[in-house]
């Protein structure tokens, strides 16, 4: 049967049997891996932590892939069309320094504490209060994000291929549920590595052929300037002097300190969705190298996400519009820019691989969310507060069931969003409520012996309440943005990064003040948890070039060089 039998009214492209074969091969391998690994996830250490036997390369690629969801791929390509090359900041300064910091500074503490999760580390450092707050907020938001991602992918598949929403949602989510519930984190990680390779092989032709069509990077810049009548779409830093000088309505302070420090460090060093991948490493050296390897690949991702958005500005014969306008007028929205470019350059077979790349992106994002949810639910909520003395086998069974239930709640969220689309506008922001203050709590806990149990809880709570309050203030009175982002010219993106910045500041201040008002734990109790109170295991590298710091320095130099090139 021709798959486009699922088609609805209008659609961008039709898949033929070659494309369907390409997609079917992918699904067959993914499910096979789940069944194959079923036998090697019998204990909780195997199911939730992949047996802590992943090499640096596997953990590193999985670390990046779990973040490379469909919303990430299509959303940032769309943002590039909307705001220009400034979107690249979310891949470079908004990721690379934090990933390197995780590998060099923070990973040893996560690893030697033998924690199973970030809330688990908070339990060891601050006690049950901070753990419960962070575990509940993480579990709730993770599963919500998973549903939002699912709905986003289903919408694109409907627009591009005419696939029915129910078909996309159920086939993808059942597949993810099968391979994660069977093989646990190891199955999710194996598939994430495959999905990472697929995303690259499926999407790489678009920028290559696009650059050939426009005649290279210089011609692309000229073409964009001609089409838009402005040149600020292709500069990374030179337009960030003031909020009104660039299409995004941000300034350099917000990008460097709000995005580059708070948001980025919050996400890449404390979001358990990504940190879990690194915790599965087979040694402390692998755990330190994994984020560095991930950073190197993350730095290259703009080639398949940002560049297609810029190419669309130069070559598409029509103009893309915002999602709400697209719904009313029948035009294509910003978010469809990546599928539009795929259809432009890819014929049968290649189009199937490109669509598979989008599906793979969605599945890696969802598997990441669901496996992290399952771990936090089982270890930090169920095992910590509801049933503390169950057997290891019972917790593994709970992990499998919570995976399935997590997928079902995600599906429910996807349908909820279908009837209340405005939720989608807010969910990214809702997620950021918890991440920025969490970074303040974790980093003080790791680097400052004086931080106390009470301070950890109240600092985290104060930071979260600050973030939510600022968000409500701007929703209630949009002109308040001038105070939150410190400029009347600030736009939506500036609000997000400044709100995170203030939340982090409040979290740190409250943690410090409360720490001095309460009794610190004896230093002996902080062994393995805090810098200055822990003896880190010696790493023996045969050669100087095997040291993580050497590779981190190389990645950092390339990062600086690229920022100067695209200044």
């Amino acid at each position, binding site marked *: 049967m021709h798959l486009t039998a699922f088609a609805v009214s209008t659609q961008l492209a039709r898949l033929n049997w070659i494309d369907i074969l390409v997609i079917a091969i992918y699904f067959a391998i993914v499910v096979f891996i789940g069944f194959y690994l079923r036998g090697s996830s019998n204990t909780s250490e195997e199911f939730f932590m992949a047996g802590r036997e992943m090499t640096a390369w596997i953990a590193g690629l999985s670390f990046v892939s779990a973040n490379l969801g469909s919303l990430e791929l299509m959303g940032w390509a769309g943002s590039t069309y909307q705001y220009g090359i400034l979107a690249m900041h979310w891949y470079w300064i908004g990721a690379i320094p934090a990933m390197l910091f995780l590998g060099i500074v923070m990973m040893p503490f996560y690893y030697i504490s033998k924690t199973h999760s970030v809330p688990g580390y908070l339990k060891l450092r601050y006690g049950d209060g901070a753990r419960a707050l962070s575990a509940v907020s993480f579990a709730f938001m993770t599963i919500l994000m998973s549903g939002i991602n699912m709905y986003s992918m289903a919408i694109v598949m409907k627009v591009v291929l005419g696939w029915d929403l129910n078909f996309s949602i159920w086939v993808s989510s059942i597949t993810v549920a099968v391979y994660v519930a069977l093989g646990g984190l190891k199955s999710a990680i194996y598939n994430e590595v495959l999905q990472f390779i697929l995303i690259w*092989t499926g999407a790489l032709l678009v920028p290559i052929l696009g650059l050939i069509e426009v005649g290279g990077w210089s011609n692309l810049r000229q073409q964009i300037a001609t089409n838009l009548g402005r040149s600020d779409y292709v500069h990374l830093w030179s337009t960030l002097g003031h909020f009104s000088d660039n299409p995004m309505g941000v300034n350099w302070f917000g990008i460097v300190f709000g995005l580059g420090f708070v948001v980025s460090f919050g996400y890449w060093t404390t979001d358990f969705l990504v940190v879990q991948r690194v915790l599965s490493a087979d040694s402390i050296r692998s755990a330190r190298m994994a984020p560095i390897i991930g950073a190197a690949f993350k730095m290259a991702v703009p080639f398949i996400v940002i560049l297609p958005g810029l190419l669309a500005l130069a070559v598409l014969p029509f103009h893309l519009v915002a999602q709400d306008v697209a719904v009313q007028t029948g035009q294509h929205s910003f978010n469809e820019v990546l599928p539009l470019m795929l259809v432009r350059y890819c014929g049968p077979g290649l189009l199937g691989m490109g669509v598979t790349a989008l599906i793979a992106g969605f599945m890696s994002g969802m598997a990441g969310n669901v496996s992290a949810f399952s771990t936090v639910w089982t270890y930090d909520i169920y095992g910590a507060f509801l049933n503390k003395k169950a057997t290891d086998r019972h917790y593994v069974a709970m992990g499998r069931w919570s995976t399935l239930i997590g997928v079902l709640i995600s599906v429910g969220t996807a349908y909820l969003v279908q009837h209340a689309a405005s939720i989608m506008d807010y969910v990214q922001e809702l997620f950021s409520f918890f991440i920025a203050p969490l970074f303040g709590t974790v980093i003080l806990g790791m680097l400052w012996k004086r931080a106390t149990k009470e301070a950890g809880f109240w600092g985290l709570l104060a930071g979260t309440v600050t973030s939510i309050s600022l968000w409500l203030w701007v929703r209630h009175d949009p002109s308040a943005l001038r105070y939150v982002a410190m400029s009347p010219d600030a736009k939506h993106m500036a609000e997000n990064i400044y709100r995170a910045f203030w939340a982090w500041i409040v979290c740190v201040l409250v943690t410090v003040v409360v720490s001095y008002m309460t009794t610190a734990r004896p230093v002996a109790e902080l062994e393995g948890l805090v810098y200055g109170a822990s003896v880190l295991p010696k790493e023996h590298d045969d050669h100087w070039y095997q040291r993580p710091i050497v590779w981190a320095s190389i990645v950092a130099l390339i990062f600086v060089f690229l920022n100067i090139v695209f200044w």
Partner: protein
Amino acid sequence: MRESFSIWWFAGILLLAYGVVICSTGIWELSHPLANPPVLNNLHAPIWWGAMLAVAGLGYTIGFRPRQTVNKRRK
């Protein structure tokens, strides 16, 4: 003793399968031109891209093929 599959072997199989399918499609299109060809169809991207994937996939499939191991799993 057990035989184990490396993740890189899976990657090799996937790339090899995709390479063969896409390269074959590109060659077939030489004699059966598309009714609505994509932009830059004259570059025959499916042929060279598919061939590159197949070569890379073949390398990984052979290099990481399953071997008999004793109590040690190769990833």
